[in-house]
């Protein structure tokens, strides 16, 4: 199954930095195992542009579509056997410790 993993900040991070896993290692391991198909960090939401078309007219807004304290700062596309495997992959990502991750399965994949 394919999962899109949203990487998000959180207002209550783990404070014990010695326990937080290393992101380079996470990427290397999961790329090598074929569990990470793609992924990247994103620039801050201040650089976002929201696009809509209404009545045929293009409407552009400066900023993200939802203003929240927690912001999406990256994403990864995972290929895993099931949710349990995806959870194991996610829990080893540093942002599970200092932020939060959302696992969303692809529809019909």
């Amino acid at each position, binding site marked *: *199954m394919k*999962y899109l993993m949203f990487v998000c900040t959180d207002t209550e991070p783990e404070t014990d930095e010695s326990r937080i896993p290393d992101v380079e290692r996470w990427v290397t391991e999961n790329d090598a195992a074929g569990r990470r198909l793609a992924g990247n960090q994103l620039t801050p939401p201040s650089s976002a542009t929201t696009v809509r078309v209404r009545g045929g007219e293009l409407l552009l807004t400066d900023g993200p579509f939802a203003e929240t304290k927690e912001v999406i700062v990256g994403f990864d596309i995972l290929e*895993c*056997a*099931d*949710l*349990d495997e*995806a*959870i194991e992959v996610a829990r080893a990502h540093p942002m599970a410790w200092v932020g939060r991750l959302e*696992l969303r*399965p692809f*529809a019909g994949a």
Partner: protein
Amino acid sequence: MTEVAAAVAAAGVESRARIVAALIRVTGDWQLAEDCAQEALAAALERWPAGGVPDNPGGWLATVARNRALDALRRANVERRKLAEVAVLASGAEPAPASDDRLRLIFTCCHPALSPEARVALTLRTVAGVPTADLARAFLVTEATMTRRLTRAKTKIAQAGIPYRVPSGPALAERLPGVLAVLYLLFTRGYDADGEPAFATEAIRLSRLLTELMPDQPEARAQLALFLLQHSRRDARRDADGNLLTLDRQDRARWDHAAIAEARSLLPPAAGPYAVQAHIAACHAAGTTDWARIAALYDRLLSLVPSPVVRLNRAVAHGYAHGPAAGLALLAEARAAGGLENYPLTVAAEADLTARAGDRERAVTLYEQAAAAAPSEPERRALLARAEELA
């Protein structure tokens, strides 16, 4: 109930979970599995009166359910491979050792990616076979809401890729407490003063199954012992007028002594949280109550589960073991640690300790205060009765 209807009901209790669990494994379709099990039971009610109850009722039901599933899948034009898998499912003979199918079912229903409400509802509906209408009544929602809750949970299982599997290795240790928590919730839901008594029986049945399927898990066994011990007092905890009685006022002859003996035979060493609680319950079921041991067990429980309610119960136990002053001191500590502000039994515990410390007047006020905040009518009456006795 006619003899045949009783036989169908018994076969249903015995085999339903097994049939549903096996059909889910091969078809991956929860609704289909439940529908086919239901149709098999309906067919039994129809045919057994004339044809007689078969020698192997469970096998009969499994075969009929399997055939219904095959028909449904054929109609839906499902690929041949899946049809072949369904076709080889336990065919009438002694049901295959599909016990792990039921375990898979339990662990999937209790998956932590489902909401806690969904876990409880799904376990009751799918594993225990409780009708949706009964679930709705017990959880104070409409039947439509309960149906939606169940459907949403099944959809999430399918769409999110929640595996139909018993976790192994370290994952099992991580997941088992979640399963036990669902059963515990179920049991208390049944055992609460105004609860649904059938749920307590259901929780014991499921706990028995879990213990049977995972004989090497002491916490599962401890939980069964705990349930049996608490449930052994079900007939003794009310007087003739339906008022709740505290342990020391119950007629011990009305306790279920067979259940107590069974629980004792199950007790593992007091290592995990359920084991410690079961040992505490066993102390309460003994001829004379060893409060010093109970207090020591609560000390251990608090180190395992540092929760407000455990702190409160520990204060009460120390109050009986080492005098009301010791209890009141620990109660003050428990309050200071927080989380007891809205817990109705806190004031009741303080009232009891205060009465035993000799301050009757204050104890009466506290009992009245506790009664006003009691969560159920029987509890309210019990607390007012204590106030009257002291006044």
